[in-house]
């Protein structure tokens, strides 16, 4: 690749990258706003789903009453971090509550 082309490629790529990063950050914010009121994020982050499957989940949760404001960003964030091409989530363990007062 010659130097001019490289510069051109960078010029084209960087705004796109910046936009993506900003979108992902908006998506993460949206996750906190629209998912966290009803359940922990662990339920989301332990899954690895295709874009189509995440999209269906957003439909389902919208039907169950959440009001997603920035849906495109949320979907992009979910696919980028928890897509079905990502490695499996590391297992998490709860602490020992066997001696604690029962609910």
């Amino acid at each position, binding site marked *: 690749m010659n130097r001019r082309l490289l510069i051109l490629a960078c010029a084209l790529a960087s705004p796109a990258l910046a936009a993506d990063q900003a979108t992902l950050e908006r998506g993460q914010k949206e996750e906190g706003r629209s998912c966290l009121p009803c359940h922990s994020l662990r339920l989301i982050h332990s*899954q690895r789903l295709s874009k189509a499957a995440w999209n269906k*989940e957003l439909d389902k949760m919208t039907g169950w*009453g959440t009001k997603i404001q920035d849906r495109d960003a949320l979907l992009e964030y979910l696919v980028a971090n928890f897509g079905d091409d990502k490695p499996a989530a590391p297992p998490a363990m709860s602490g020992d*509550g066997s001696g604690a007062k029962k609910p």
Partner: protein
Amino acid sequence: MFATLLSAAAAARLARGADDAVVIPGKRPMILHNDRPEDLETPLRYFDSWVTPVDAFFVRQHIPRPAPIDPKTYRLTVDGMVAKPLQLTLDDLRKLPQFTVPATIECTGNGRAFYSPKIPGVQWGRGAIGNAEWKGPRVADVLALAGGAPSAAYLDTDGADMGLAATPDFVRSLPMKKVMHPATILALSMNGQTPDIHGFPVRLIVPGWDGTSSVKWVIRLSATAEMNRGFFMNPGYRYPKFSLPPGSPPKPAELEVIEGMPVKSCITAPEEQAKLPLGAVALRGFAWAGEQTIERVEVSTDGGSRWRDAELSSPKLPFAWRLWRLDWRPSDPGYYTILSRATDSAGRVQPFVCAWNPSGYLWNAVDRVGVTVEKAA
């Protein structure tokens, strides 16, 4: 482009769900799928007894558990197509004849994580299952107090838990034939203890059926002519009548309510990818078959070429699992693939390939664990 992803530290923080320490009161350390509401899986190392202790029993919550119920003010409403609608106290339930039912409860989605392509939902491995001794009055006796429900086809059971926002209420319908079965009870105790997070003070036990049938925190039994139309009866907890190619969408008209559970065995020891010293190895596990009994468990230590019968625990009961054991003495070091396969009283045999289904229910493929046997140093 990975530069656009979260930093490693941020990803690690997210993986922890932004909670640094989650302790579930009354529970040993459990595999944590969700802490609010609680979805807890039993680690395989706890499965060393026929009765699973309450503090090790798995937990599945669709919606947050209700505020603690005061046993003194607790009321069970029995209504709908009964001759005499009524409200019962906990003492009323205690005065009825009490029956102990040993029964395995397994989450309908246990093993979902093994399906490919991936399926949305809690990514249960092997441990969303447990066996307990449930005790309480028969549902048939409770209905008799209300004058019976001779013309009803279903009994709707509602728990005290309520969905957040527009999440549907958790209501399940059970066909009257199963309702009237003498082993279908309202459990007031679990292994002689209060059921706590498992539905205190009253939970339904539907032996041999998927765990979702056994509604917790029961506050209402309603006799009805038709099956409840809520989400948790349709499309939730349904299974395709005809098998689908993996990854394809469900055909809503061809989904059926799940009733009895399939035949299944599981290897609990040694654990996946364990390293074992050359010598005697105890292979262990459990097997259950819904409303049937377990007749046989076969184990292979060579990937399925040769099979040996495992020793099975007593008693042999419908609804409750049997533990199995086989002593194995590998003659050489190396990598071994151990398989287990159960057969039940109806002649059902655990399949090598479990049919993919759109909700990831009823995983029961032949279980498989890989271990490395190492020469003693």
